[in-house]
């Protein structure tokens, strides 16, 4: 790893004494506490960071309502400095629908995992999308039920080893995976559908622009918006943390290539589908 013998180590215990500009604080404005109980190498705090950064940058913190599903990320909802509602397993899009209809001024987004959204509550998200509800659903997709031990979900890809598909998922026994973002992109009610990932710094920046765009489109009030974010789960995948980004590319990343799948909104001055993908 060490490419330079005796490369000088910089003191990083305190801020430098010469004039500097702070470009990134430990936690963004809307995350109160950085400490959490998620595993080393988890992709979910990375995804939550970029969502909260977008809300802070667009000055929506007083209008934002997060609706959380059930999963590891639910524990992280305590760290957020915005209103949070806890929904039943898989039912977050319906709760968000109710909140948004009651107060159209809200910026409502759901945070759900693949087990929550695609296994437990598939009809909720599909009907919300088909109705064109003006909410944003954020899916943190890692292809396994991370919280309960790393077994197969509906998005686990063919050949992927999980705790209950030790020989790899096969279509004879377990059927085919559901590519949820592609499914929602077919629905007329959806205005913006994109798929990002957080397995490297470039993908994090790209995914942040997708979330930005999704919130923008929600504010236009022209339909349902959806961002799928592929996240690492080294604990549930039983791989080393440093191998997890490449493992993501080799498993769920193959069938679910990142990019903007649907964007019917008129172009705004910021990002458009051509610049994101």
């Amino acid at each position, binding site marked *: *790893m*060490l*490419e*330079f*013998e*005796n*490369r*000088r*180590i*910089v003191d*990083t*215990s*305190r*801020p*430098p004494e*010469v*004039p*500097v*500009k*702070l*470009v*990134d*604080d*430990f*936690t963004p404005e809307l*995350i109160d506490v*950085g*400490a*959490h109980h*998620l*595993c*080393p*190498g*988890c*992709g*979910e*705090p*990375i995804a939550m*960071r*970029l969502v909260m950064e977008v809300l802070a940058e667009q000055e929506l913190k007083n209008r934002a309502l997060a609706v959380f599903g059930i999963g590891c990320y639910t524990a992280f909802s305590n760290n957020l400095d915005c209103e949070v509602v806890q929904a039943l397993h898989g039912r977050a899009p319906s709760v968000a629908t109710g909140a948004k209809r009651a107060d159209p001024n809200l910026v409502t987004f759901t945070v759900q995992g693949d087990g929550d959204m695609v296994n437990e509550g598939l009809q909720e998200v599909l009907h919300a999308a088909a109705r064109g509800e003006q909410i944003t659903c954020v899916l943190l997709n890692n292809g396994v039920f991370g919280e309960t031990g790393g077994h197969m979900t509906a998005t686990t890809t063919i050949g992927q080893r999980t705790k209950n598909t030790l020989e790899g998922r096969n279509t004879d026994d377990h059927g085919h995976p559901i590519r949820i973002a592609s499914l929602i992109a077919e629905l007329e009610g959806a205005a913006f559908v994109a798929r990002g990932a*957080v397995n*490297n*710094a470039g993908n*994090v*920046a790209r995914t942040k622009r997708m979330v930005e765009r999704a919130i923008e489109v929600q504010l236009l009030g022209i339909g349902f918006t959806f961002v799928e974010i592929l996240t690492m789960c*080294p604990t549930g995948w039983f791989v080393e*943390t*440093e191998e997890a*980004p490449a493992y993501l590319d080799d498993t769920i990343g193959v069938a679910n290539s990142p990019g903007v799948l649907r964007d019917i909104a008129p172009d705004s001055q910021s990002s458009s589908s051509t610049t994101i993908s």
Partner: protein
Amino acid sequence: MTTASRPDAAGVGETDAGSIMSRGTLVIDTEACKGCWLCIDACPPRVLEMTTHTLNSRGYRYPVLLAGCTGCRACSQICPDFVFQVFKYETPVIAPLTMPADEPRP
């Protein structure tokens, strides 16, 4: 070694044989680190390195910063544990590239 050994180090700007320019620097909250290595691979100029002999109080290895940081925020954006605070120097700092060989490394 020279910059030729690091094809991804464009723009870091080694000024001459013995010194290197840093455009940015970090404060690292080593106690918050869970040792996942994501920052090591994310760093474009490759100036983060995991400790080899030192652990934090929770038993994890943590990253140390080598001279040559560009302040690009790749580490802070990828870190799941919010370990990094990123600063950019108003005037880039040019400092020695190496440290004495007998000084212990963490």
